[in-house]
């Protein structure tokens, strides 16, 4: 790989040991993938996780003097004060690791959005921008929906990119690697946002591999939330960093354009039966629930509005959590949605993830309802069982205390 003088200086330590380490990791990645050079990035998003390795890595870079040249937005952490007041007494070690992580990211120069949907607010790339986005729902969104260019960065490699302001040029950064390879004919009825959860979960079960799929047969343009759900599940059930929707996403004005004029390597069909099968496999049987949790990825203002409409003048029977960004929470307050949800007995918590231990400890071993297969999957390790239902059904279930038939 050929480096510019500036990049060589970074690697040699002229800008400090921290920058040198970040550059060394990126050069390693570049050589692994046969990159010929590095290119500047305009944006980055780091999947902060407040777990041991995350803290260790960011502190190591920070203590060696690294600072971000491109300030990245970051994934959620925990709103310690809110959960402490409304859920349980957070253990000391949990408080320590979360506080230390937040502080380290602040000092290294990250923008502390604590939100996993940077593509809806705060960090929205335009067509063709070269960026470094980690976070499973974010990478496919920026590539597919916006036509920006990001590889499937890890939280570590995205932080290194933010520090050096560079990424190795390989994979999805190159035009020729962004063409569709697998034709997916959607014959199933895909209409609402929840259908995209199922379709996103289903595709990697039908086709294993890292090729770029092209979906056809989707009649109308998905909502931003539909795209969000779709990417999150595609990249959790499988490892899909980019997809096309023929006639809908920007690099697929036509089916031919999506494939770059080449024939597909493989053709698969997804029918109603396939989605029904996924539903049977992952959604769970009706039954009593102990709590409800929505916001994986963080809910948008229109999803919060939908919840508030259902809850107007009603009372929840079980603990009810809506996870969103601090900006959306503030907007919800301004719109009165927050007050409606709170009057019903529910919580809207900002800056927090469904997957940051130990914040959901009171629910270990219990059963909840969610609208997100990703949320259910990541909580298996903590023995939290989730019944998966569309958002509106899940809210109704929380009013009744059970998911009904």
């Amino acid at each position, binding site marked *: 790989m050929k480096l510019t003088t500036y990049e060589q200086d970074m690697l040699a330590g002229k800008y400090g040991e921290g920058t040198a380490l970040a550059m060394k990791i990126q050069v*390693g*990645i570049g*050589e*692994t993938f046969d990159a010929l050079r590095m290119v500047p990035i305009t944006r980055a998003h780091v999947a902060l*996780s407040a777990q*041991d390795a995350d803290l260790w890595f960011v502190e190591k870079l920070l203590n060696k003097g690294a600072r971000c040249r491109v300030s990245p937005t970051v994934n959620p952490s925990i709103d310690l004060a809110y959960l402490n007041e409304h859920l349980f007494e957070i253990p000391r070690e949990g408080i320590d690791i979360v506080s230390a992580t937040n502080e380290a990211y602040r000092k290294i120069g990250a923008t502390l959005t604590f939100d996993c949907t940077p593509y809806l607010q705060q960090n929205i790339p335009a067509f063709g921008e070269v960026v470094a986005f980690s976070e499973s729902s974010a990478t496919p969104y920026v590539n597919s929906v916006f036509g920006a260019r990001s590889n*499937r960065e*890890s939280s570590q490699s995205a932080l290194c990119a933010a520090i050096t302001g560079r990424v190795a040029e390989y994979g999805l950064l190159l035009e020729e690697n962004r063409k569709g390879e697998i034709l997916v004919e959607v014959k199933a009825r895909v209409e609402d946002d929840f259908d995209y959860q199922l379709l996103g979960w289903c595709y990697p079960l039908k086709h294993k591999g890292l090729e770029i799929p092209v979906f056809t047969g989707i009649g109308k343009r998905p909502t931003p939330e539909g795209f969000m759900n779709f990417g999150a599940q595609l990249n959790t059930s499988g490892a899909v960093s980019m997809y096309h929707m023929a006639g809908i996403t920007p690099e697929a004005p036509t089916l031919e354009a999506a494939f770059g004029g080449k024939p597909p390597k493989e053709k698969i069909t997804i029918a109603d039966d396939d989605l029904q099968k996924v539903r049977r496999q992952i959604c769970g049987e009706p039954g009593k629930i102990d709590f409800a949790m929505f916001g994986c990825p963080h809910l948008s203002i229109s999803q919060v509005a939908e919840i508030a409409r259902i809850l107007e003048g009603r009372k929840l029977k079980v603990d009810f959590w809506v996870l969103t960004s601090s900006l959306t929470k503030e907007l919800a307050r301004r719109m009165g949605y927050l007050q409606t949800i709170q009057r019903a007995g529910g919580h809207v918590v900002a800056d927090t993830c469904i997957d940051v231990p130990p914040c959901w400890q009171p629910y270990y071993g219990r059963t909840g309802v969610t609208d997100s297969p990703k949320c259910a999957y990541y909580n298996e390790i903590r023995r939290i069982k989730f019944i998966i239902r569309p958002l509106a059904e899940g809210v109704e279930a929380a009013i009744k205390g059970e998911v009904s038939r």
Partner: protein
Amino acid sequence: MSPETSVSLKCRKIAEGKAEGEAIISADAICFYLVQPETGVVVEKYHSLEGQSIAGKILVMPSGKGSSVVQADGLYKLMKHNKAPKGMIVEFPDPVLVSGAIVMEIPTVMKVEKKFYEAIRSGDQVQIDADQGTVTIRKG
């Protein structure tokens, strides 16, 4: 050690350094989150290395798997307990594994000549020299 019993093959560096130890071969991708940090024993159900320890060995694996968060955390915890592999030989590396190996200073290589995979058996002594781009199997 006679020259007949050692085979030296070319490879490419992922993370610098030299390491020597007993080879352990995984048929499946490795998720370090599902390796017990205190012992280095793979606990993932139905994994080809289930019940075996990778601690202090030269891990020969097709690839890593799992999100960057859990994968890095798993490798980090192994390192903290001194149960990480001494070196890694990878067929299909990904950015998570590359950044983990470099920052945790585990000598790691890829693109080893095909002959390696025909010759190597679990239990063989293997030497990695990432800087020189060689892997040496010492038989017997």
